């Protein structure tokens, strides 16, 4: 499973990354990589308008908000 955090690096994007890492840890999932995509051109290729955004296996799960770890866990299961 490849998780990508889309965001150019402001504190909100960092919070999303932290929540994601926490969710992965709590579920004890193996075989998961978490990437942080900061490049603006790559971000727009996902059709996302509002950052921060969360992409799991190339599907956009949320955009423009910061889901809590619990919500992210629901997508990871």
């Amino acid at each position, binding site marked *: 499973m490849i998780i990508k955090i889309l*965001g*150019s690096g*402001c504190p909100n*994007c960092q919070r999303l990354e932290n929540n994601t890492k926490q969710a992965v840890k709590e579920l004890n999932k193996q075989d998961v990589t978490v990437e942080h995509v900061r490049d*603006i051109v790559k971000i727009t290729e996902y*059709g996302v*308008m*509002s950052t*921060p955004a969360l992409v799991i296996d190339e599907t956009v799960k949320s955009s423009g908000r910061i889901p809590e770890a619990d919500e992210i866990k629901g997508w990871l299961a």
Partner: protein
Amino acid sequence: MKKETNIFLLLAGLFLAFYFLPITNSQFIEALLSGFALLHEYAREHVLTCLLPAFFIAGAIAVFIKKDFVLKYLGGQAKKYVSYPLASVSGSILAVCSCTILPLFAGIRKRGAGLGPAVTFLFSGPAINIAAIFLTISVLGIKIGLARICLAILLSIVVGISMQLIFREKIEEGKLFVEQSNQPTYSKAVVLLFMLVMVGVLVVNGLQINQAQKYVLMGLLIITTAVIALTKFQKATNKEWIKETWSFTKMLLPILFIGVFAAGFVMPFLPQEFIERIVGSNTIIGNIVASIFGAFMYFSTLTEIPILQALIAKGMSQGPALALLLAGPSLSLPNMLVVRRVLGNKKTAVYVLLVILYSSIAGLLFGGIIK
């Protein structure tokens, strides 16, 4: 390891600064006092009566105006007379975090209404900032404040249309991911009334009536706001509103305090003669110099206001001041370098030149009118 290195560097830097502090230098003392005096002025006259209501209003906008509703009207089928005006005012609605301005811009440009409205949005996002507008009016005066908001909106549309006419880009087809919001729907009338009452607090503060009457009126309006919120909105909505308001406050107040102190500190050093000579009167050169300075210089949100206050105190005329206010917040050298990666060199250069040109014209006209 990196974090510990940073802490070390910070402590070492602070120590060196304190060690070499020119504490006996009278100019330095004067600058320090000037910085604190300006902070005192802002704390007394602007923070509670202007910034605080503005933050609450900004929080309400973030909660009540649905992004997906606005984005729909910035889509590919949008009519020009809808998309341009909407793009010019929705900056503060859509881009609550500054890092999202570029993805939004790219989205509107390629999969939405096109280059023109996207550029309008790019310019107006930082320019039409609720807190900045009200603080401008409170600190610099109603004339330049109103001129700022009207001309910023107008300029963003003109710059957008100009870019579209010059480059004539086509829109692509594409998937647009717009998150559905799950906010409860409230009657538009109630939300509008709610906002107006809060704006009323700001307006009353600016009126020329005696203090006691002002406080009574403002108190009444504040109570009304609270009553509407408690009786008409769900608890979750109110919580969200307070959360957004707090988030704005946390983000903007510290920067403002630093900016105000810096502007006050620098003020005694500003070369009055130089300022008066170049931007002291409403000349073409003066307005152009002011817009170029504004375009390249980086202003953190709200800090353009104390800086302008210092420049005006040292002789800057109203026309060039407005030119700076228009070109300043939306552009900066770092910002240009980032925009360049999405727009390319040519379009970025044209964008910058258009902003400088139109801000200078706006400043010139304003300076001429208020004489």
